[in-house]
């Protein structure tokens, strides 16, 4: 049994390190994009349009992953797209997490009218179809990075609030909370000292999942042209442009898509791995 446990832990470790490595790579790429990118992502060159990636016959070695129909370097556009993808992911997931977790903790632990207000609010909120809601929101306040972040936060806080409320409720019923109350700790003190540490692993998992979701949402909104201006490279925008020339230049679609896929996968695997690290029972 001890061996089996070790095995599970080691496999979880590999998963954690692989996904962490990919995300660290992305962060470095995002930070140093201008130094890493071989070309200017916006520079058009109609004479070198739709060049294939380097290993395919007829490629130009200076465009490693080929060019799109306007002759822009695919690799450089992916590299610059990382900035927006990661920026949106981190900022929107953090805000979503803080708002959702705070409301969930308050509702689940204090119960009473706080819970009634928050829970009914969540119920009503979740009745709106999320995609329609975000498109509507952006149509009203106009496209842009800020709008995307706002749309994600406004829609996804319920995901956190729901789950964390349930967990806070379960923890609140434990005897250790009663003991803390007998010892004279106030309600808020119990929430911070006793409940929060036990809810933290779940918050971490949700946070990383949310980052993955934010990357997808940003891509979806770029895909339907509701993200930022079409000149600025975004993964979703590239996928959208690549779609029209899929039969002539598959690389314009495939490379950003693979990057997107790996990133979302890494976020979710990172969450799982971190949960195991945080949980004292599994540690």
């Amino acid at each position, binding site marked *: 049994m001890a061996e089996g446990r070790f095995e599970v832990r080691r496999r979880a470790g590999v998963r954690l390190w692989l996904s962490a490595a990919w995300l660290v790579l992305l962060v470095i790429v995002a930070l140093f994009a201008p130094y890493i990118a071989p070309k200017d992502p916006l520079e058009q060159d109609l004479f070198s349009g739709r060049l294939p990636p380097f290993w395919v016959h007829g490629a130009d070695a200076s465009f490693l992953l080929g060019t799109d129909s306007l002759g822009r370097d695919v690799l450089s556009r992916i590299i610059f797209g990382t900035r927006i993808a990661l920026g949106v992911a981190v900022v929107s997931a953090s805000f979503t997490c803080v708002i959702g977790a705070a409301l969930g903790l308050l509702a689940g632990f204090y119960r009473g009218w706080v819970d009634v207000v928050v829970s009914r609010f969540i119920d009503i909120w979740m009745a709106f179809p999320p995609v329609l809601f975000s498109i509507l929101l952006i149509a009203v306040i106009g496209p842009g990075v800020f709008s995307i972040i706002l749309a994600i936060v406004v829609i996804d806080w319920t995901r956190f609030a729901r789950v964390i409320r349930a967990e806070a409720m379960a923890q609140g019923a434990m*005897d*250790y909370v*009663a*003991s803390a109350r007998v010892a*004279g700790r*106030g309600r808020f003190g119990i929430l911070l000292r006793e409940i929060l*540490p*036990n809810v933290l692993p779940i918050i971490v998992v949700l946070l990383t999942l949310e980052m993955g979701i934010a990357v997808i949402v940003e891509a979806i909104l770029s895909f339907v042209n509701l993200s930022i201006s079409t000149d600025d490279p975004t993964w979703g925008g590239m996928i959208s442009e690549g779609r029209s020339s899929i039969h002539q230049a598959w690389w314009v679609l495939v490379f950003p898509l693979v990057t997107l896929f790996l990133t979302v996968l890494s976020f979710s695997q990172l969450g799982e791995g971190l949960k195991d690290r945080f949980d*004292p*029972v599994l540690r």
Partner: protein
Amino acid sequence: MSFLEVRNLSARVKGGGPLLRDVSLTVQVGEVRGLVGESGAGKSMIGKAVLGILPKAVEITGGQIVLDGTDLLTLPPAVRRVKVGASCALIPQDPLTALNPSRRIGVQITDRLVDILGWTRQRAEERALALLGEVQITDPARVLRQYPHELSGGMRQRILIASAFAAEPKLIVADEPTTALDVTVQKQILKLIAALQARHGTALLFVTHDLGVVSKVCQNLSVLYAGKVVEDSDVADFFRAPKHPYSAALLAATPKYTDPSAGLQPVPDAVIAAVRAEVEHG
């Protein structure tokens, strides 16, 4: 002098039936009082009412809980919490959920002493170390750095006992402290509670359904049926000659290891009907 005096306490589920009916009992300084009754008789509710940890669905409808001369029910919640925290402690029923799973043992024992009673961290740590020695934990320094899941149920219950005695409370409510443990561990834990109680002179309200346990650790006991105290006696008198017919039947229902052929004796229906009538109408 009585340290705790519960007077005519009544409670009910909000919008439902009564849980406690006119309960009165006292715990003298240094006394060990047993509180026995079958499941659902309200014995844990009394302990919880005293400590102020009743479930939200339960409301107190009348009576007084006088702790050290002050009626707790008249105090504002914050004042009450501090007063109870300074003089009372709880040994909970289930050692598996009574320790916070994500915090180290040492921190759980000491931070209440530091944060709430204003001890220095060093003093609190020395105290925790000494107490773990008192509850016969070997290598207490190591245990203080461990997490609850690394310890057995018996070890955790010892830690909870140590933690309950940590701030030198005047009164400890032990809410069925041995029910969740297996029989061999139960005996050690009972001995330990009795020993610490005697050494520290702490009053103990011992909630249990096990009359065998009562005979070992208590001086007095209150027998509860459907939220009402039907008998209040000295333990020696109770086991010699119970006053109430329900108590007598309860005593007769205790399995006797000396005569296995007797089998289990349920409380006779007639006795139950009589005590129910008495509780509900008397």
